């Protein structure tokens, strides 16, 4: 699995040694990273998010126990903001927090990793998380594109499109809409063009996600 080029790994840990070591490890695998010394700092960064584009694939390495806002609290915030798919969370835990970590995975965390970790395995999971992020972003983008295209269609074109997707021949569509077959063909060609598809099957697949 190829990590997306512009992906970014966020590291939130109160221990500077751990932060730096992780960043160094990721760099050895050519993964860029950004470190935060506390959950509060990261939450602030999210809120004033200039540097981070929602379109960019990302992954969050989150220490469970920290002074101030705990990792879990930050996790709750992310759930609230529905960011877990775009920004998968991997918890870094000590032994004591294993049950907590298991619980959080059940609630949507990507994974957890016990310290001290098998580092390359961790990086592998990070890459998987980044891939999931990229995938999610791709899907999001496609969806956004579709929405955009649909918005371009006129009223009549949309009517024709729905009937086409239902699999009706042009003749019947013309009858139903009380227009000429020729007009239906024009609309149909225009819909295909606007929706950026070649066939009715492709169009139906595209719309099934709606």
């Amino acid at each position, binding site marked *: 699995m190829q990590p997306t080029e512009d992906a970014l790994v966020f590291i939130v840990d109160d*221990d500077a*040694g*751990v932060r*730096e*070591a*992780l960043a*160094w*490890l990721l*760099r*050895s*695998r050519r993964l860029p990273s950004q470190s935060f010394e506390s959950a509060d700092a990261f939450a602030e960064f999210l809120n004033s998010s200039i540097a981070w584009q929602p379109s960019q694939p990302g992954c969050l390495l989150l220490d469970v*126990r920290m*002074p101030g806002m705990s990792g*879990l609290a930050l996790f709750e915030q992310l759930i609230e903001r529905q960011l877990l798919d775009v920004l998968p969370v991997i918890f*870094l835990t*000590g*032994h*004591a*927090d294993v*049950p*907590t970590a298991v*619980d959080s995975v059940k609630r949507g965390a990507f994974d957890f990793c016990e*310290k*001290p*970790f*098998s*580092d*390359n395995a961790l*990086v592998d999971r990070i890459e998987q998380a980044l891939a999931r992020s990229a995938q999610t972003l791709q899907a999001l983008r496609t969806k956004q594109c579709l929405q955009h295209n649909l918005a371009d269609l006129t009223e009549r074109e949309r009517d024709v499109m729905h009937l086409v997707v239902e699999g009706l021949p042009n003749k019947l569509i013309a009858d139903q809409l009380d227009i000429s077959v020729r007009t239906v063909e024009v609309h149909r060609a225009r819909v295909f063009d606007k929706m950026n598809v070649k066939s009715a099957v492709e169009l139906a697949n595209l719309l099934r996600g709606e």
Partner: protein
Amino acid sequence: MLFSIAPRLGRRVLWPVLVLLVLSMLSTLVWLAGRYEVTQVQSRIERDAADAVSDIRTALTRNVQSLQALQYANHSAAPWTQEASIMLREHREWLRLELRDTDLRVVNSVDTPFRAPAFTRFGREANQPEVVQACGVARRQSGPGYGASTYVPQANGLGLEIMDMCLPVITDGQLTGFTVATYSLGEILVNMVGPQLTRSQEVSFTESDGTRLAMHGTARRGSRVFIAKQLMDLPGHTMVLRLDSWRGAPDLFPNVLTALVTAMAIALVTVLVMLARDMRRRQRVELDLADALAFRKAMEDSLVTGLRARDSEGRITYVNPAFCEMVGFEAQELIGKSIPAPYWPPEMVDEYGQRQALRLAGNAPPREGAESVFMRKNGERFPVMIFEAPLINALGEQTGWMGAVLDVSEQRRVEEVSRASQERLQATARLATVGEMASLLSHELNQPLAAISSYATGSMNLLQEGAVKDPHLAETLSSAIQRIGQQAERAGKVIKSVHDFVRRRDQAREAVTPRALLDDVMPLVILQARKLGVRVVVHCLSDLPAVLCDRTMVEQVLLNLARNAMQAMTGDTPHKVLTLSVRPAASSANSRWVEFWVADLGHGIPEGVAEKLFTPFFTTKQEGMGLGLSLCRTVVEQHGGFLSHHANNPRGTVFSFTLPQSGTEA
């Protein structure tokens, strides 16, 4: 009923009867005494009368002799009249002496010189029948004869009652004449009756029909009169001598006897009254005593403390019901028993015997009581506290010992349970502290280990990408770096195994109601609260659902937070109140939570301290380790909950934590 009413009724009747009897007896006595006195007076007067009669008789007889002497005197030497005059001077009772011939003609006569001649007014002849009668008697009897008394009026208007006595004069066996002596009855009484008799009494002669002839004596001096009559039988004439004794009205105490009897009667009545009064007082005292006894009995019966009294020989003299119930013996099985007492365990007999000997020798037991072991009837041993005090009787002598016996087995059991529970909690606390230390240590060590491991792996990655050109060097470095990683991993495993060992009990989760959790820690909390002068308030709804938790660990959390809260309320805290409350907390989608609050009214948490509150080994207490709150947070987070704190209103701090409800997915 009968017992109570009969004496009362009897008493009501008996008293008047007794008083009546005493009064009647007294009056009878007084009456009898009066009667006795009357009889005595009467008999004395009778005796006096008899004496008087006898005096008169004697005098009359002597007079007869005197007259005989006159007859036989030699009249040649001195004429009869001369002799008679001399005799008349000697005998004032005579009015006149006559010498008569056989035909009763007056031959010679002499009148008494002490009064006027009595017969001057009507003449001597008026009395001739009486003289004839008297001399007739004298002739027949050849001795003195008396005629009937007659009244002779006198010149001065008064009269004299006279009586003639006739004595025959016999010369050579031939009756030659008569000597007649005329007696004045009044003078007889004056001269012939002893003066002692007439001093306080009146003497009189009466006819047999009661007509008074002559009297002599004092005037009457009282209203009571005693009369004695004595027949005076003279030859030819019979008269009655009457003695009148005048007495005053009967006195209240006519004589010493009556007075004595009365005084004794009064004394008797007084004694009776005093007795009655004493009796009433005694009854009242008895009633009071009965009340006091009943009170004492009720008190003894209601006591849960066993009471046991022993005399100076060690015999049991008294036990109360509580003692009997305690040892299981009946009172009659115990009373009178000496050493060894039935409730002494056989194996302790020697020791107790020595102790009792010491006690009987006069050694006072400790005031705070002695602990001992007794045996119930069924053989069960049980610990008791004995408080003994000397038994002092009314004379102030010690007669034995009174012992109060308390069964302390229940107390011992509670103490045992309490100690066991405290030990368990303390053991858990130690274990939890060790666990927390291990956890902190592992966390702190894991951080650098993680860093080491990361650097090693990163280095390996770089080596594999050919960062080092010399293949031999790369090989050597790779091997070394790999070992670094392996050693770091090994260190991590060691830490993990220690940690796991300490945290083995992590999974012991059970469903416990919040009330049960609070109840478990309350004894210890209250113990400390009492020491610090803190009031503990608990708010816990009874219908709160059970929480799923590691019971002992959560109890540690509660204990830690409660202790911190109490210690936060130092001396200057105005109201020391610790509030423990439990309430349902805000719930998330798939789990429901219960929130525990531990609130104090202490000095609150200063700004600088709040940040470091959960930092391990940070503490504001001198003897603290700085692990308490850290441990609390670990435990709560292990349960999936949160531990937080905020300021209390109006002052102090609230620590709260959440635990998942049982039955929901945590």
